């Protein structure tokens, strides 16, 4: 029996290392879980990209759930995500709000002219100052905000068809069933 002890020790260690591999391949290691989940979205006041004299605030978006999509023309992964969003936008069930992050307005407009504009509302954070309150650190990022202005779900990185089906759609379905 005592001869088995080193072997059992080895098995435990191998199990631990195997768990480490399984755990780290199962999720995006660079994605930091947001502390803002289930908390009210931060207050913000941002101009529209196409009409900079008009502003959008957290209050003005209350009443309907929306998916806030942080993107930029300089962001390569955003180009990967964009077709997925564009295809999904009409059937998503929530409004798709664009958040143009640290971008020159002209670059953003040119990018949208090329790739298409799926956003029902599009605001611009040229300085990236408001994005700090949202805990944004890399585009693309997406926040699902409910009708009460509470962040219910966040995805860091591009929304792939898998993320859309396995995470985003269930999160939208789980939103409180209130007037949409």
């Amino acid at each position, binding site marked *: 029996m005592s001869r088995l002890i080193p072997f059992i020790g080895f098995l435990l260690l191998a199990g631990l290392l195997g768990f480490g591999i399984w755990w780290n391949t199962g999720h995006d290691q660079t994605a930091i879980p947001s502390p803002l989940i289930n908390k009210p979205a931060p207050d913000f006041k941002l101009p529209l990209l196409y009409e900079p004299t008009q502003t959008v605030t957290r209050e003005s978006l209350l009443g309907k759930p929306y998916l806030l999509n942080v993107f930029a023309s300089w962001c390569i992964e955003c180009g990967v995500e964009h077709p997925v969003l564009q295809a999904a936008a009409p059937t998503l069930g929530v409004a798709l709000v664009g958040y143009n992050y640290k971008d020159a307005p002209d670059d953003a407009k040119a990018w949208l002219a090329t790739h298409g504009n799926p956003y029902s509302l599009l605001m611009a954070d040229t300085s990236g100052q408001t994005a*700090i309150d949202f805990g944004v650190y890399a585009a693309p990022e997406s926040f699902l905000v409910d009708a009460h202005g509470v962040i219910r779900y966040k995805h860091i990185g591009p929304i792939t068809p898998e993320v859309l089906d396995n995470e985003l759609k269930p999160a939208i379905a789980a939103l409180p069933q209130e007037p949409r």
Partner: protein
Amino acid sequence: MRALLRSLLLATLLLCAGAALAQAIEPLPFKDHAEEVRYQHLTAQLRCPMCQNETLADSNAPIARDLRNQIFQLMQHGQTDAQIKQYLVDRYSEFVLYDPPVARNTWLLWFGPLLILLVGAAAVVATIRKRSRSVTPSMSAATPTALDEGDDW
């Protein structure tokens, strides 16, 4: 004359390069040396969320630059180091702290190594006890030569 001109040109170019480098360091208007030291110390304790193995002080990622600026602004508003850290934790989670706080969810992190050390120590003690118990009775019977042989390990 030609050589002189050439070296003059080279010197001018080098000066320009030096100026460009100095620009990249983005100097901040600190009011005194103490404030600058405090800023350096604080940003060195915080982790860049983008390039995750660098401190905010070291990283050249755009978000690190933004956060450094934000930290500087918060310092100007008279916030303490603890308040500034809390500000970042509220937005980017405890991930930004290089030194995680001792809390219930970090107990394993802080005391796990101690736990493993204790398990190892217990195993060593158990082994030694067992060996000394099994060796002692045979000691009296063993001849000196047999003892020498057994000593090899």
